[in-house]
Each structure stands twice: as structure tokens, then as C-alpha cells.
């Protein structure tokens, strides 16, 4: 740390080096937060979590019947003094006067630019657009088949929401006009995962039960941009119709915050890292990662841009959240704390904070450990025994640091 501070003072190396390397280090140290505890609201699995663009309000969608949605204020503790229980703004799905509310919420998402709107999809086969202040549905889109996932575009030039479900196609719903503007056809089986590119707002990635991952440009009407090939074209079966990204259904997709990489997760228990620009498989080996949510969309989460010196990808596997080093494929840490399967993840856009929701109906907050209070006794003890802190991260940093001069 002292070396990093000195380098910053002297102007050696780029100015973002200290924030990003420190952020990366902190993200890799995530543990169950001792100070932040979210109130238990849902009575069944927490199926979906999302943090707003400022990272303050966490929205959660529960698998209760009838479905429930909660908004948590994660910045300021509410409740009794000294107790770090985050405030909960309650909105019960059931209070809405709809005939078909007896379904669990499957995905809930904030409007990417503010907290005025959020969207939900649930077992009732509706995509619903909500006004946060009134807690009323302002728009809804009906689908014939079950909906697996929906994602809102983070871009500013359009407000399309992509919806993937049992219809083997992707429907783009326009929030402005209230109509579905187009349909992207190309998959032969239901679409289970969708992700908008973080670099180019017209690019959408989709993963389907037909084992393929397809990149689309929504301005291009006549077909997909490319289909990702796990073998990079080296296998003889060069027939494009059977090009697949995984050996099983693809139910998790996520672009890195810088938009350079795409991660896909399939029921073949493999995690693949793709170059988002060329569409090539980078062949990083993450080992076997059990896909414990094969029948639904599996949420993936990247460490925020503030921690990208060593980007980390987080995946819910069983009751744990596994963290992998993106570029080396090494497992960094596994976060265990849930009593059931983990169903949902949300990463703070700036800070090193991770939220996870599970079938045990809990939402857990994972934060870096608070700084140790310096103690002379401990310092003496550790020195006397010659103990050296084992920390792969700090030595990584040192190497990077040296390489830079």
C-alpha cells in the first residue's frame, strides 16, 4: 500500500492504478458483511436482485405466491440504532388488483438510468413496467409462453427490453411506444439468457436451450451477427447450423463492464470467456463449474469497473457464490452463507459490494472485511514468529507495479 501511495504521489504510473488495484484487492476479499444485514422480507426463494445505477436501492423479487417485490435502501441503516438493518420499502405483488398475480416473480430489473421505473416478469407470462413512486403497473406485455428472462437496454438511444422465453425467439419491447418493436428469430429452442453489450448499445447476446450463443445487432433485421463457436471453427463440422457454444443449454450470459468480454455459462457445467469483438472463444479454463440452476436463467455478475485491474466473475453454484479470476480462470474464493441454493446476484456498480439471494429467502450482503485495528501486540507477535502474510494479491500488485517502471 505504501508503495502504491508513493507511486501515486510521485506520478509514477497512471493515476487510476491505485484505485483499481486497491478495488480489485478489496473485491477479492469479499466476505459476509458483519455490519450490513438486510431485513428478511420474502417468504420464499429470492429469484431476482438488482441494484439501481447509484448502487443505493436494491430491488428483490420473491418466489412467494402471490409474488412479492421489495426495495431495500442499502445506504442508510433503518430500524433500531446500532443495528445495521437496511430499510425495506414494501410492495406486495398481491395488493395489485390483477387476476393473475398468483405467480412468483422471476426477474425484476431497474430502469438502468434512474429508479423511477422497474420491470418484472413472472410466471403469469407478462412483462410488466412499474412506476416506482406509485407502485403501479403502467404498461404490460403479454406472452404466450413462459418467460425465462428479460433485460433492459442500458443505452440511451433506445429503450428496448429484450424478452426471452419459450417461443424460440427474442421479442424486443419498446417502453416508449408500448409495443413490441421487433422479433429476433434464429434460435431453435427457448431462449434462456440475454445480455446487452456494455460497449455497443445495439448489440445483444442471447443464449438458448439449443446450446448456441448468438450475437445480434438489433438494427440488422435479416439475421444474427454471429453465432459463437466453442471450437473457433477448428472442428470439421463447419456447418454453421450446428455451431454451438456449449454442450448443453446456455442459461447464463454476461458482458464485462468494459464491453470487451462476454461470459457464457451452460448446463454442460462449463464457463466460457469470449472476446466480444471477434466472437472467439478465449479458451480460458475455469474447470468444471456445476450448473445448479439448469431450468432457469442463471445470473452472472462481474466485479465493477472500479475493480477491473483483476476482473472477477461471480457465479451462483449451489448454496455458494464462486468467484473466478476472469483472465486466468483461477478460483479466487467461494462465498458460502446461504442455507439453500443461490438464485440471484447483484453487484454494486462502484463499490466492492455483492448481494445474493437464495431459496432460503435471505438476501446476504458481501463486503470486504473492515480494516484491522492496528495493534502493537499482534505486530510484535507476528514479527517474532516471522509470519509473513500470505496474500497472492499483494504480490501480484507488486509485480504489476514493477513492470510499469
Amino acid at each position, binding site marked *: 500500500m505504501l508503495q502504491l501511495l508513493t507511486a501515486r504521489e510521485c506520478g509514477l504510473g497512471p493515476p*487510476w492504478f491505485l484505485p483499481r488495484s486497491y478495488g480489485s484487492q478489496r473485491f477479492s476479499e469479499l466476505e459476509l458483511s458483519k455490519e450490513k444485514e438486510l431485513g428478511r422480507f420474502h417468504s420464499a426463494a429470492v429469484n431476482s436482485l438488482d441494484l439501481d445505477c447509484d448502487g443505493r436501492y436494491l430491488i428483490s423479487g420473491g418466489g412467494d405466491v402471490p409474488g412479492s417485490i421489495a426495495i431495500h435502501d442499502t445506504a442508510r441503516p433503518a430500524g433500531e440504532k446500532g443495528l445495521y438493518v437496511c430499510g425495506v420499502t414494501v410492495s406486495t405483488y398481491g395488493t395489485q388488483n390483477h387476476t393473475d398475480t398468483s405467480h412468483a416473480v422471476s426477474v425484476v430489473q431497474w430502469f438502468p438510468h434512474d429508479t423511477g421505473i422497474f420491470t418484472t416478469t413472472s410466471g403469469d407470462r407478462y412483462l410488466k413496467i412499474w412506476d416506482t413512486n406509485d407502485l403501479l403497473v403502467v404498461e404490460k406485455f403479454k406472452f404466450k409462453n413462459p418467460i425465462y428472462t428479460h433485460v433492459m437496454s442500458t443505452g440511451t438511444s433506445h429503450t428496448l427490453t429484450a424478452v426471452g422465453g419459450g417461443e424460440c425467439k427474442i421479442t424486443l419491447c419498446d417502453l416508449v411506444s408500448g409495443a413490441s418493436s421487433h422479433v429476433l428469430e434464429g434460435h431453435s429452442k427457448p431462449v434462456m439468457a440475454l445480455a446487452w453489450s456494455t460497449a455497443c448499445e445495439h448489440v445483444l447476446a442471447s443464449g438458448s436451450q439449443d446450446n448456441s450463443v448468438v450475437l445480434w445487432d438489433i438494427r440488422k433485421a435479416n439475421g444474427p451477427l454471429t453465432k459463437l463457436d466453442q471450437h473457433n471453427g477448428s472442428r470439421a463440422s463447419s456447418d454453421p447450423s450446428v455451431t454451438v457454444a456449449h454442450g448443453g443449454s446456455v442459461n447464463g450470459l454476461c458482458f464485462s463492464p468494459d464491453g470487451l468480454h462476454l461470459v457464457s455459462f451452460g448446463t454442460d457445467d462449463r464457463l466460457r470467456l469470449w472476446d466480444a469483438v471477434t466472437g472467439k472463444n478465449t479458451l480460458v479454463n475455469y474447470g468444471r463449474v456445476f450448473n445448479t440452476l439448469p431450468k432457469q436463467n442463471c445470473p452472472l455478475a462481474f466485479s465493477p469497473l472500479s475493480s477491473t485491474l483483476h476482473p472477477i466473475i461471480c457465479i451462483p453454484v449451489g448454496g455458494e457464490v464462486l468467484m473466478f479470476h476472469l483472465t486466468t480462470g483461477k478460483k479466487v474464493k467461494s462465498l458460502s452463507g446461504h442455507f439453500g441454493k443461490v438464485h440471484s446476484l447483484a453487484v454494486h456498480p462502484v463499490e466492492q459490494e455483492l448481494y445474493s439471494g437464495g431459496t432460503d429467502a435471505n438476501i446476504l450482503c458481501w463486503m470486504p472485511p473492515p480494516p484491522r485495528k492496528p*495493534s*502493537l501486540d499482534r505486530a510484535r507477535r507476528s514479527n517474532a514468529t516471522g509470519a509473513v502474510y500470505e496474500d497472492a494479491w499483494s504480490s501480484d500488485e507488486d509485480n504489476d507495479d514493477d513492470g510499469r517502471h
Partner: protein
Amino acid sequence: GTVLHAACRPILECVISCVGAVDDRPAISLRCHGRLLMLLLRLNSPLTRADQHYHETGSSGETVSPSCIAYLDNGVTFVGSCLGDSQLCKLSSAADESGGYVEILETFTCLAPILDMSVVDVDQQGRDVVVTCSGFGRNGSLRLVRSGVGINEQASIDLAGVKGVWSLRCGTEMAESDNTLVLAFVGQTTVLSLKGEEVEETELEGIAADQQTHYCSNVIGNKILQITGQSVRLINEETLQLVSKWAPPSGKGISTGSCGGSHVVVVVGNELFCLDIQDSSLHQLSHVTLEHEIACVDVRVLKGDSGTSNICAVGLWTNISARVLRLPSLDILHTQPLGGDILPRSILVAEFDTRTYLLVALGDGTLHYFQMDPDSGALTNGKKVVLGTKPIVLRQFVSGDAHHVFACSNHPTIIHWNNHKLLFSNVNLKEVNYICTLNSDSFRDCLALVDDNTLTIGSLDQLQMLHIHPVPLAESPRRISHQRHSHTFLVASCRVDVPNGDKTALISPKPCASKSVSNMLEGTHPDDLSILPVTTTEELEVFSLLLFDENSLEVIHGYQLSPREHVTSLTSCVLDSTHYYAVGTAFVDPTEKEPNRGRVLLFRVSHTKVLELVYMNDEAGAVYQVVQFQDKLLISVNSEVRLYKWEEGKMVLECSYSDTILALYLKCKGDFILVGDLMRSFKLLVYKAEKSVLEEISVETSLNPVFMTAMEMIDDENYLGADGRHIFVCQKNSEAAVEADLMYMLQPSRMYIGDNINVFRHGSLVMEHPGASPSPIQGKPIIYGSVHGAVGLVVQLDMSTFSVLAKLQESMAAVIKSVGNIEHEVYRCFSMEHTAATKTKSAEGFIDGDLVEHFLDLPQEKMEQIIKGIKKNDAHGMEVDVTVEDLVKLIEDLSRIH
């Protein structure tokens, strides 16, 4: 197009820091460890190899780690550095006498990086000097930054009561340069002759020694003109014989006079005579009687002193006015009332570049200046500036090719022309009564200055607003602190010892400051501390404390810290009415993530100016900050803030606070403590003496994460911070409606500055002039120093000035096009670069001084166009339109504070 596959051959064991191509020949120059190498690539040979290399042995002013190399032409290369001065070098293919291949043509001063600075008023003149810790590695130095112009004294003579001084060329040898000084005393005149560096009193036959001289100079026709209280005398330069003499017909005494070209103007009471110098005689050309007594006179001297002058200006008693008269007829061209009741003491028609100005100095230190039309004598654009508090004498002098004006008073000032405007630079002298230019054989381009007791001969530093004096250390200075009581600076500096060739010992590179201290003390480890042993195979950073004399800036004493002990903070403090330097250190073990041992060392400076280690206190981490808090010592150790009492010569822990990530910065005011966190911006603590606790009363959360780099308390409720790219002000929220909001700070102001600020200090580089018009500046300005070597100034403006300037800034931004046409608003906005969606907030609450000062450079029409719609409140609280004059005056006043 062609790809070269070059075979690698190790050049030298070094790190290449920078590469640049050399014109179109296939060669590149490399820079490693301060050496410049040139590789010539042979395209026809299969292996490309280092064919030739130049390297430098004469390492004078060599940069350690250049940031760029740009080959210009003819072997001339620019080596730019972010860690010291940049250089323009000439590479040659043959070694010079000293064996070097590189000749340094020019050095460009750069303060980067400023790691710390101390703002002190060393000579106690009300003007602060900034001493910065600048540079890195062997380019490390202390830099003295002061505003104004320095005089390098070359000789001085004790002479009391000198009223005026003039330089002359005279004698038979017809010297090309001045060889005589004429000094005026009350009722008499003394002549000094300069022979080499010898100065001796002589008598010149033609010069009247028993009368007071009002004017004396060489004039056309190889003559010397002397105007005394009784007569005007024309003297032959060679023979020194009196040639001609003129006395006022009324027999009254001459009060003053001036000469330009062949015209001599003489003042006798309220009469003005114009004389003409012809071959060897003086003729009276004209005569006029004005209604009031004449106080001062000046004749316009044409450039190249060839033609005759055609204009003279006088200042009058009683009705306090300036007049411009035509020569030789003495017709009045223009009358300019000056207002007030202080009489003009000195008047000067000065030419700067292409413009002619009339300067009138009053007896109270005020200067009026007007633009003058050289033909009609009409005066326009009158302005007023306060230069001092005593009468001013204006003297014109030539430095280089340019004419400047020296305003002699108790705050001597040089008025010069730069970038189409008049600039006023302070001269770093206490008082000057009179000056003249002196260009003798041994005193080239000098000035002779007289004050009440001495005659000083000195040369002028470069005319620039800021003046930088380097004190090279050849190692990296890190922290500095000043102690007025002992008149010393303490500097913590760091040198890197490298293994020698066979890795058997560590050697210090070059003669550096810490190696030149003869009686260096050496520190040792605490006994129970086992850190990595020092090996002879790795580089080792060695920290030392160097004690400097505050005036000479010479190292008097030093203390070398134990190996692997880094100095992290330094301050001067008073504990129990004894002055100490408190030093915070950290033991650095490269295998550790965070230092877990450190120390606080207390040093006293003895009467013999020697550092004495008085006390040591072990801490369980790096002591990032040590400051005096009331009569106690406040330190931050990693994430903890600890307050120590000083009792019976011991540091006793009183209380602590530990809810931070890393408490890097601390500032105190009264009972308040502001903590600057590594990534959580500000926390405000208050010390409750009765309970003896530190309590958190306010935090800043809206900005997080903010990686703070520096901070300062503006006042009790406003805190200035910097995060590497922006500066911002946070405010304690003392008026929140909801009680819960009281804890959270507001953030009223922010701006992008694009530089990493390392240090803020309260201080001001310029003197405040008593009696100047009410200043729009509130509080003491804050000076900052940045990684890129910038020294900047942040001042608080009053609300009315701010609102006027904010509107001006807005309309200026629309008119002034920046480099690359980047919109000002976009450039200055606050952007959170580390966030996923690059969020921005517009800049608020700050005025961009650089932009606003551009207003002065605009043509009049444009100024008028810009200020349309800008209102201000007048004295009665009414909204009125601002005028161009108001704004120009305001901005000129503001531009004078830096």
C-alpha cells in the same frame, strides 16, 4: 509496411524507460537509467543490432526517467520528463572534452512532481515563499518559488542619504560602457568612478560637486548634461570641461528637469523652460508659465534616441493634474486631472512595445497610468493601481531589448509589458529610493539601486511573475516542514542504494545530499522487530532527515533512518513550550500488504543547529500523518486516528478513533479534526475534552468512492479536497431540516482540474497592499502543488463577485474556443471515472481563473458583447449592468494575486 524481425542482444543491464525514433533514418534513441543510447538499425544485415551507441558521461542536470523523447533535427533532441526538468540536447558523434556525447542546450524548469511543500514567510515581509519537494531520484531538489523579481546583488557600498543616482560614460578612453556613477545628496553631488570591480570617489572637473543634481546623463554630441539646483551644465565627455551653462533668468532655483534627445526641459517654480542642445551651447527655445507649481516633469525619449523628442509631461501641485505639452513650443496638448489631494511625485512617458503610456505616481504610493497617443498627446484608458504606501519614483530602464519601468518605493515594483498588457512584478527588496541602469565592464546589464543606507549594484533576474530557485539534492525529497523557532527546514528525503557490480555491497549513487552530511546520525531498529534483512543484491531505499538553514538552504545536519524505515509524515510542533520536529515512519516489508510497524520520532534542534532525537514511540502501522492538535499530538496509524498527550516527556495515548479504511490525511482547527480517508473522502471528528473522546460528527458519502490525494480546511465548515482529477468543497450540513441529514456533508462545489494535487497549504505568494480597494477575496488563499508540477491558487470570493464572474465565465465559455474545441462545461465537469456508467455532474461553485483572465486579452467590442446581460448589485442593492471597466478592474485585481 515491412516487419523487421530484430535479434535481441542485451544492451546493458537497465530498464528502458522511453524510446523515440530519430528522423527517417532507421535509428531509435533509448533512454535507460538516465543514459541516452542511440541504436542504429542496419536494414541490410540479417540481424539488426546495436551498431553505435552514444552515451553520456557528463551527467550535469541529467533527467532520470524521461516521459518522452522527440528527435527534432540536426542531432537536437527534446527529452521531456515528468520527474524533473526537461532538456533540449544535442547529440554528437564524437565525444567532447569531458567524454560526453550529449550537450545540453537548454533546460526547461519543471517542478514535477511536487510531493510536499512548505509555505513560509521567511524574510517576514508579508510575502510567502513556497518551498517544494520536487523531482525524483537524481533530479530531486527543493525549489523555492516566490513571486516577483529577484536582484542578484553583486556589490554594495554603505552610503547614507543618497537622493539620486545616474550612470555616465566619460573620460578620454571613450569607454563603450558606463564607468562613472553620479550620486546626488542634499546640497551636493559625488562622483564615483568604476574601474573593474573597484569603486572609488573622484572629482570630475565639469560636474558641479557643491550643488544637488536633479538630472544627469550623456546627451547627443558627446556631451554630458547635468541639471543642478542652480543651473543646467553641458560638459564635454572627453575633456570633462564645462562647455556651456544656463541659469534661470529669474535667479530662482531649479526644482527639477529632464532631457530627451536634444531637448532639455527645466522646471523653475511654476515656469517651464525648454532648452536646445546645439554643438556646444544651450539655447532657450521657449518658456511658459503655468498656473500652479510644477512637481515633476518627463520628456519622452524616442526609441533609438536618434530623433528629437516632441512631447513632455508635467505633474502639477494644487490642482493635482497631469499635463502633456508639445516640444519645443510648450503648447498644452492635454490636461488630465488626477483627483484626490495627494500630489504627483513622479511622472514618466514610457514606451512599451508599440504603445505609449503616461505613468503618474502619487505621494501615497498610488500609480495612475494612461494610454497616450504619441502624436496628439491625448490620454485614454486611465487606470489606477496601488503599489506601495510611500512616494514612488518612476525610472525607466532597459533590460535586454525591452524598456521597463522601475517604481521605487517601499514596495519596489517593475512594470513591464507582456502579452499586450502591463504587468506589475514585485521586486524582492525591502525598499528602493532611486535606481539607474549600469552597464560597466565588470557589471554588465546591472542596476544601481539606492536605499536609505546603501548603494547596491545588482543584476535583475528574469522578468517573470514566479521565480524559481532550485536547491539540488540528487535524491528524492518527500516531506518538508519549517520551524520558525529554530530558523530551519527539515526535509525527509530518500535515496536508492544499488548493488555494486559483483553484488557484494550497496553503493549510493552519485554524491547526493544525504551523503554529503559529515556528522550524520544513524538510527536503529527497535529490538523486537524482525524485518527482512538488508541484502546486498537488491536495491534499498534509504531515508534521511536533512536539516536546512532557512535562509541559505544549506544542509546543516542530518539523521539517517534505519534500513527499511520510510518517512511518511513530518511536522513541526510545540509540546510543553518546547519546539520539536515530529516524524512519522513506517517499516516496510515488501512481503507485507500493509506496514504493521512504524514509529513517531521527536527531534529537537539544539542551539548549535544539530538534530537531537528526544523520544521514540512505537506504533502498529504506518504513521501516515502527524499533526499538532492543541497541545497534543494527533497521528494516524493505518486505519486509526490516535491522540497523544505529552506528559513528563512521554507520549501517553488519550483516545483514538478507528472507523476508516486508511486515514491518510489529518487537518485540525479548534476542536475539529478532519480525516481524509483513502477512499471514503471526509470524516469530521470533534474532540470532547471533558470526556476525552474523539466523536464522529459528520461524514461525506455522496461522492464515494473518492480516492483522496490532498485536503485542507478552508474554515470550520468548508473543506477542500482533491481526488486526483477534481477539486471539490464539502460543507458541514449544519442547517439540515431532518436530524438524520446533519451527519451527511453537502458538496456545493466541484471542478475538474485534470491534475493530481498532492498538497494544499494556506498562504499567499503576493503581498497584500494596505489601502488597496476592498478585496473580493475572503480568507487566506490556498496554494496547491500537483504531480505534474503545477502550483495553483484557490481563493474564496464574496458572493456578489462570484455571481458576476460566474455569468462572465458562462458567456466567455461560449466565445473563447479551447484547444480542440472542447466545451468548457464538458471539460470542467465532475466525472466518476471508476463507475460503470460514466456519470458526470456539472462543475459548480468554482470560477475557472484561466478562462476568466482571457477577458483582458479580448478587444473592446468583444468585451462589450460578452458582458451583455450580466448584472451586479450596486451600493444600494439595485441591479445594474456591469461595465467593461468594472470587470477589467476586477479581473486585473484578481490576476494580481498570483
